[in-house]
């Protein structure tokens, strides 16, 4: 299994040599959304706390890094950690309110959505960050400003993010942290009775998840060069983030990656189809259908299903 993993990484490293510009972009965002999905996976998959407002963390990280770069001249290579930190602060607030007040399931989902929407509305109405028109980043192509003339650099950065996050999740899974998160997901009260400080571990998961997501915000800002509140804080982005790990297998290391490899081509195809007919954003219909299908037929996600299929086939 390990050999297959190294082989896959080697292939991914070599790919840019043969991909055209369009395919390269598809891969870049495939890796990037896998990264975001992996970050979400920590709190949404392993800890089982369904957050539908993770776009808030992307937005906070993105605006922070962009503003620091434009107004303080701070290189986004440092700005991304500040952005991540601020996102983690927001994550702490949301997590604290949610977990302290015992919000579970549907109530917690609503809380996360409410926070993301509040961020969106505040950004829309704050002229200092561009308001409804958005915030634009001047293109300089300067690597110190996290801008790269060559798309292939973006490719490798995105790949590094994805592999990095995956490494973190793999480590978590093997550690006590991960075992406790899984226990909390399975049965919170039983975990408490076994000595698990459920509040502390849920908070930790939230902080790590929101931090990583915030770091991703910098990549978002400096690859798209424009920040629109509705796009960067909106529900559609939150859906993009959660659908990959859910389809691929929430609470598994490879789930978000597999999910992204399934979703991104699907998204491209349906986006092109709908765009041809003049309906922007309607590719979300495909997401909706996919979500429903996964819940009904593959509730554990594609990866666990594939794994048990493989196990059965081997016998």
């Amino acid at each position: 299994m390990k050999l297959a993993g190294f082989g896959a990484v080697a292939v991914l490293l070599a790919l840019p040599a043969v991909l055209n510009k369009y395919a390269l972009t598809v891969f870049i965002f495939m890796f990037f959304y896998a990264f975001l999905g992996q970050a979400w996976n920590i709190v949404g998959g392993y800890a089982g706390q369904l957050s539908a407002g993770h776009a808030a963390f992307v937005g906070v990280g993105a605006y922070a890094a962009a503003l620091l770069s434009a107004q303080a001249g701070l290189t986004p290579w440092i700005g991304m950690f500040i952005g991540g930190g601020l996102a983690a602060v927001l994550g702490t607030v949301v997590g604290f309110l949610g977990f302290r007040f015992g919000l579970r399931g549907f109530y917690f989902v609503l809380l996360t959505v409410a926070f993301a929407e509040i961020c969106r509305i505040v950004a829309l109405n704050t002229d200092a960050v561009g308001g409804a028109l958005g915030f634009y980043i001047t293109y300089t192509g300067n690597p110190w400003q996290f801008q790269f003339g060559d798309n292939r650099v973006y490719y490798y950065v995105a790949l590094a993010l994805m592999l990095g996050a995956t490494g973190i999740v793999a480590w978590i899974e093997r550690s006590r942290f991960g075992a406790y998160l899984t226990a909390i997901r399975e049965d919170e009260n039983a975990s408490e009775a076994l000595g698990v400080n459920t509040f502390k571990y849920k908070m930790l998961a939230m902080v790590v998840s929101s931090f990583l997501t915030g770091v991703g915000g910098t990549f978002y800002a400096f690859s798209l060069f424009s920040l629109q509140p509705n796009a960067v804080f909106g529900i559609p982005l939150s859906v993009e983030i959660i659908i990959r790990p859910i389809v691929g297998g929430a609470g598994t290391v490879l789930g978000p990656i597999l999910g992204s490899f399934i979703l991104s081509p699907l998204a491209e195809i349906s986006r092109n189809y709908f765009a041809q007919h003049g309906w922007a954003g309607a590719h979300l219909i495909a997401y909706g259908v996919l979500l429903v299908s996964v819940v009904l037929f593959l509730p554990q996600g594609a990866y666990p299903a594939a794994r048990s299929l493989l196990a059965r086939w081997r016998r």
Partner: protein
Amino acid sequence: MSLLELVRVSKHFGGLQAVNGLSLQMEAGEILGLIGPNGAGKTTAFNLISGFLKPDAGEIRFRGRSLIGLKPHAICLLGLTRTFQLVRPFPHLSVAANVRVGALARHPRSREALARALAVVEQVGLAAKAETPAGSLTLAERKRLELARALATEPTLLLLDEVMAGLTATETEAMVGLIRRINESGVSVLLIEHNMRAVMSLSHRIAVLSFGEKIAEGAPAAVAGHPRVIEAYLGEDYEHAAQA
């Protein structure tokens, strides 16, 4: 200093007084059986002791230390672990992974915890099912798993809530033997049970609850013949049976 001390503990839910001025003492090394009709407040007492509920009045002390206001996980780390009446396995995790969660309380390193967990799994007789997902176990196996998980936290005092409910006669005998062996290895046990034969043969002492109050306490034989106990279980008409 007693191992566990409840001093005039009370808890009410709305208009219902679930536990009323309950005082109880347990010494290290003993098995104390807690019996009483349904609704007597036994599980509420467990919830109060283990930190899932906060008492309205009274004191609860474990090894001299007050447990009031502590969260359940903190109480577990002090050495007091409880099981649940309706078993709560982690359904998607294997038996070994389930027990490992308990073992991690004392052994933070994953590999050590797993080794400890497997030892406990062996001890309760579930070694053959170590890799099976807990969701596919039979009831008797789930009860053993519940016990194993609690045991893995290396408690000084184990609170068992109707751990024999729903078991066949053979399974019950096995469970009784298991609990006795656990006690002999140094773990004190406070158990809620409806199975009279089991609790009478296991316990060193018995306390009887009725309507949230303790109505009798003592050696099993003495308690069994106590008129108030008979009255509580069978009603006033049978009180005279004690004299017989």
